[in-house]
């Protein structure tokens, strides 16, 4: 998909540019550093706090690279809701993105209980505390256009869409593109190029 998109754009350009490599970018799992945009004064905090600040910034950025179907994000809606399921590991980290504008909408953060109000969420963060209940949670989200973000082993294998993991002391993420398709979401090839892609 990434290749097609690139080629489609390049073909419109002059011949001198035609020689751009077909594969601009191999999907490799690469480290992602601190998103300085979202995380001011990051160096002053503890590693724990800093990790969640980075994750919060990543979630904010994910929204930019994900397209929701029109029903899930109707015209005229004012907010994009980031819902945190049950236990909130972010503490105040999500406050830094709360109220910011993305896709012309304000970012709102809500805490929810399983099985309730899920249809108003565009992004649902599922913390590690929900590990055992994950299959159920995933099931409850079936049919909804919700970007699920988690931070536990086998999250994407069990049907989650984006999962954070830490490698070489850097926050990275893996993406299950099939899950995303099932949720009716379109992910930017650029996002995929930064992620470890899983198909299941």
């Amino acid at each position: 998909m990434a290749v097609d998109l690139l080629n489609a754009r390049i073909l419109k350009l002059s011949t001198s540019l035609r020689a751009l490599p077909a594969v601009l970018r191999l999907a490799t799992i690469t480290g992602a550093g601190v998103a300085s945009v979202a995380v001011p004064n990051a160096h002053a905090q503890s590693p724990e706090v800093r990790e969640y600040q980075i994750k919060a910034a990543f979630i904010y950025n994910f929204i930019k690279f994900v397209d929701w179907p029109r029903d899930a994000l109707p015209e005229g809606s004012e907010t994009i809701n980031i819902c945190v399921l049950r236990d909130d590991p972010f503490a105040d980290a999500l406050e830094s993105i709360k109220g910011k504008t993305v896709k012309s909408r304000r970012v709102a953060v809500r805490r929810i209980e399983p099985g309730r109000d899920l249809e108003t969420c565009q992004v649902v963060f599922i913390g590690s505390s929900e590990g055992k209940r994950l299959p159920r949670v995933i099931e409850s989200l079936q049919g909804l256009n919700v970007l699920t973000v988690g931070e536990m082993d086998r999250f994407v294998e069990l049907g989650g869409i984006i999962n954070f993991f830490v490698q070489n002391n850097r926050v990275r993420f893996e993406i299950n593109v099939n899950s995303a398709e099932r949720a009716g979401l379109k992910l930017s090839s650029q996002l995929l190029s930064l992620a470890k892609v899983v198909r299941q």
Partner: protein
Amino acid sequence: MVTSSVTLLLAGAAYVTYDLITFRQAMSRDLMILADIIGNNSTAALAFDDQQAGAATLASLRAQEHIASACLYGKEGRLFAAYAPGEPSPRPLPPRDGCRRSDRGHLAVSRPIVFDGEPIGTIYISSDLDEFYGRLRRYASIGVLVILASSLVGWVLSVQLQRVISRPILHLVQAAKTVSERTDYSVRAVKQSEDEVGLLVDGFNEMLAQIEKRDAALTRMSNNLNQLYRLSTAMQEPLSLRDQLTRVLEAARQVVAVDRFYIWAVLPGETRLAALAGAGFSEEEWKDFDRVEIPLVEAGAMGKAYGEGAPLVFTEATPLPSELRLRPPYSEIRAIRTKSFIVLPMIARGRRVGLFTADNKWSRQPILPQTVDLLQIFASHAAVAVENARLFREIEEKGHQLEVASKHKSQFLANMSHELRTPLNAILGYTELILDNIYGEVSAKIRDVLERVQKSGRHLLGLINDVLDLSKIEAGQLTVSLNDYSFKEVVYAVVTAVEPLVAEKKLRLSVSLAPDLPVGRGDERRITQVLLNLVGNAIKFTDAGEITVRVTSANGAFLVSVADTGPGISEADQQKIFEEFHQVDSSATRTKGGTGLGLAIAKRIIEMHGGRIKVESAPGRGSTFSVTLPTRVTVSETS
């Protein structure tokens, strides 16, 4: 050749410049698009702060051989990733110096990267200009090749064109040069082609032809004028009328292309024509023709032309109508018979004096209308000659008549004077005898009457003598008899004669004679008469004062002056006093007496001696008469 090369070069340079500018703009645009693509592909890497991913994106520029360097900058201008060709792999870390913003000899663009309405970084790409310079070099070599090739083609073409254009033009120039050097307008250029140059040659030849034609016309006209000029000069020579007319006709023959010319004069009485002169005749013809006389009424066309005073032209096409033919027997004169001829009346000072005729008896060609004007000129020349001859004859005749009449008059006067003198001498003689008491004592009363008779008789005798002298002079009968004389004697004779008169009027007479007066030769009696007349006049018109007679000699002449203190003579009258029967004031004739002939006679006598007489005077200043008389007259001058 040089011009076209320069033009080609300029046009080429302009095109190349335009192309290079366009090319550079296209390069710049392409580079900008490339930067935008790379920038777009780098948004995720920038957003997730993945430098390795950014470097990998930049590394895709490896396929672009002209990219010199590329850099991705983060939101705060922090160097995020960099690319430089030749590096083995994309580097996540920035190179030492990053991207220089002002690479010389490079084309660089810098574009902001905007994602979701938010600027998230900047991309900078710099391209070398190898392609640009390569194009420039290519153009330069192509340009040199094109100029070389076009020069070669141009040279070949010009060699060919020279054959087509230059050669005929050079030929034309040569012809023009020949014409101007030799002033020979019969030269013609040879036409070699039917193009513009051919037309030029045609035009040149046409021009020459016209000049030649005009030249010939001018020569002919100048020749005609020359003939006419010589003719009018000849007319002033003292030639007989026949000779003059022959000259006119010969001149006409040289100017006008007509076979024969002849002139008829109308004889006094205007009833007959006489053949006066001709040209172009054979001797035989002329014998037939010379001095033929034809009555005007029988002369046909000639009679008509003379009668109407207008020219008539006949040709074979417009033949002579039968009523205008010559009547027999004149029609039998073969020399006259012709079919193509012109008759011009000759008119001088408004008088018709004859006919000027020209014919083409031999060539039978019609007389050309344009020659009529010329013929008219010759006709009027001939007319003037005829008329002049007539006038001259007339004047000669009148002069002769006048001369005879004048002679008769003078003879009559001379006879008359002589006849008058004879009885008068008898009267005077007897009166003197009576006064001398020959016939007895005469009473004082009768003596007084007789003295008056004597005085009047002497006056009358003087008058008769003067008239006789004058008539002798007029008749050419007055002669001078040349003898040696002494002017001193002349002066004393005069003084003796006038002394009683001077004494009577109580005037003073002084005489001044140069001591060395030469012996003169002339008519002493006449010279005495002149001096007596001058002194007598002086006494007669002077009431008080003196009369001075002065005689000197110089340059072979006596210089005589008689000065008085009389009333003087006005300037206008000084001209008239030497004319016959003239006195200054006609009233003076009555008081002073005299005939008024004295000075006229004196003047004639002095002139007969080859001398001069003049007067200097002004009213109230007296008069001085001066005579210059040759000392020795050799031949008497008859007046």
